[in-house]
């Protein structure tokens, strides 16, 4: 309140206007993610894109290299094995979560890739997860053409 206005509103009951924002939305995945998702669904291959300039392989694949500002033209199969570059174990049930805690999120650097993939770990006790541990992708038996085709990553066999 500005100076001198306070008294005018003394004793007024502070009301709340309740509402919610719910707007259906769809994002066209684009050619690059579409190719990636179709491969996950149909062949369980994890495909990255490689930059001609710096030779970096991006997983998940991007159409352009942010370092060189050029188009990535080559497709490269990566994984399914990889290394945990960081992780967290979520202990408190937050609204955005789709699973019951504890939930383990991890960045996984797949063999053959230069960037880490964000995903979930399972079939491992939270206490046993370490940076540097070897993991592998576990695919869902019935797969949609999206990131959920990979169910989670688990300790490498």
């Amino acid at each position, binding site marked *: 309140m500005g100076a001198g206005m306070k008294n005018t509103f003394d004793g007024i009951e502070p009301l709340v206007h309740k509402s919610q924002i719910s707007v259906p939305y769809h994002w066209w995945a684009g050619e690059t993610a579409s190719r990636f998702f179709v491969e996950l669904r149909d062949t369980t291959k994890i495909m990255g894109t490689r930059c001609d300039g710096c030779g970096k392989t991006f997983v*998940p694949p991007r159409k352009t290299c942010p370092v060189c500002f050029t188009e990535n033209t080559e497709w490269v199969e990566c994984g399914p094995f990889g290394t945990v570059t960081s992780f967290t174990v979520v202990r*408190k049930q937050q609204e955005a979560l789709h699973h019951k805690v504890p939930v383990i999120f991890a960045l996984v650097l797949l063999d053959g890739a230069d960037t880490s993939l964000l995903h979930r770990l399972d079939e491992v006790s939270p206490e046993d997860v370490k940076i540097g541990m070897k993991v592998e992708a576990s695919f869902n038996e019935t797969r949609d053409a999206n990131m959920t085709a990979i169910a989670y990553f688990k300790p490498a066999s």
Partner: protein
Amino acid sequence: MERAAIIGTGMTKIESAKHTETFADMAWEAVNKALDDAGMTIDDVDNVVTTSNDFWDGRTISCMAVGDASGASHKNVSCVEGDGTFGAFYGLSRALSGSYGTTLVTAHSKGSESISSLITNASFDPIYDRWLGMDMISASAMQANAYMERTGTTSEQLAMVSVKNHGNAVKNPLSQLPMSISVEDVLGSEMISDPLHKLDCSPVSDACCAIIIANESRVPAYSGHPVWIKGAAFCSDAYFLGDRDISRAKALTEAAKKAFSMAGITNPSKEIQVAEIYDAFTYQELMWLEEMGLCESGTAGSMLEKGEFDIEGRLPVNPSGGLLGGHPVIAAGLIRIVEIVKQLRKEAGEYQVDAKRGLAHGVNGLCGQSHCVWVLDSEG
């Protein structure tokens, strides 16, 4: 760079939920305080930059909701989506452009009105990442683990940041969470996402902040006590977390280098005398200090243990209590600038430190994707 100064500041108290005030009400309070502080009327303001975020505000073109209360009607008003330091950078550019002599910059948000986990989940890429259900806390926890693994920084050292900043907040009447707590209290508080306990995380907050920037030619026209902008720079890193080494903050290192160079600073750890850093989580204060070059990599934790970052220490860090004392998203970085202005004007009351030159820092994006660094000086 041509010279410009901050000649007025104003902010609301930071609170967990401002039940009696709308966004516009908060802006009205902060803007009028800043005008009074500068010795100006709204007619002396040449242009306005508001800073807000549509998801946090629950409306599109969220800047329009505060324009009227910011005196933007019939003026050139523009808006920035992101932290307030980035809005201030745009405001500074305008004040230096030759087209506007003075810029009013505001930044606001009310975390109390929505659900932080869902809002910050929406900052993840909708095609590749959002479905996982991560949010700002789980992403930051992942960064904390990477930083601790690389540097050997301990959970006890993280906890000491919380103890220091909540303790400093006791001296700041505008802070939300003044608390006298111990390291054991922090380590014993609920584990939210390893390694971050509840008391390692900043609170959900409501507030608005405003500053007035003037170019040198306009500074003498008003009674506001000027604090001079010696350096200001920002830098951004890759969007996807997996593209970055999240144990480091390359964008911050670059932004700080540029800001120090503009200010003619060659030895930042000696020449910066007070810092207000974006400590949304305890580990961030230590990591940002190292990555901006205010101490060697991996040494912030042990320097903290020695009391070097205390109010009475060699380099006081977040004497106001920082974001751990209150974290209104968007406004938080602008508040860091205001806190440094208070210090350099000797108006910081019980948390006053002895400093002529200070640094303010803001962050935008997950795990510090973008950083904005300001170097301010009490003398021109």
